[in-house]
């Protein structure tokens, strides 16, 4: 399984903070394409948004990053702490 997390505006727009998905995607990009098929808000947030930030297992990642069972993949907007 993959543990998928959504933060901040992404969590609100997509209506969930986390979910478990089968580990059938080789890269973050494949996972994003599958998620985008869920509907317009998913497509806009995950494919059309230039500001999408990605982390895999707590490290900054990108669409090419490879993923495997047990990984934690997070999607979020640019950070604004401090």
């Amino acid at each position, binding site marked *: 399984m993959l543990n998928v997390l959504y*933060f901040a505006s992404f969590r609100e727009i997509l209506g969930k903070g986390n979910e478990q998905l089968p580990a059938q995607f080789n890269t973050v990009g494949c996972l994003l394409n599958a998620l985008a098929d869920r509907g317009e808000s998913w497509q806009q947030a995950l494919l059309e948004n230039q500001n999408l930030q990605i982390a895999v297992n707590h490290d900054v990642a990108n669409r090419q990053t490879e993923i495997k069972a047990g990984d934690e993949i997070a999607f979020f907007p640019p950070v*604004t*702490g401090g």
Partner: protein
Amino acid sequence: MTAFPHIQIQEEDFDLTTEAARLREGHKDIGAVVTFVGTVRDINEGDEVSILELEHYPGMTEKALEKIRLEAHDRWHLESSRIIHRVGKMYPCDQIVMVAVASRHRENAFYAAHFIMDYLKTNAPFWKKETLPDGSERWVDARISDKEAEQRWAS
């Protein structure tokens, strides 16, 4: 007990004197202590702000902050450093974040604290949401100036 004792993510407020004492504890060869405290401004983007809510990504936050902290130690030979970042609801004038560094000489302490803040702003997974006086909420946008501030430290 966190795995990163020099980093605290907490809802509670913090006390500058207490934290500066913890920073210096067990370190004798310190000549300079610089602290930065970020506070909630009552105005943002021209609008009055009633509440500021901070969300973060537990696990990644600590890892990102520890990486920034160790990089600062590497560059400026610090004796000691601490980062505290609050999460949850805060109000105008509340303390949000503290970066404290101790070193032998002042120059390194000033640069290191500034560096840590600039990197924290663009690399640590925190997000701010504002509530305006009319009750409406909005996520704070990332600032281009913060990205530019970070990039000045590229070596």
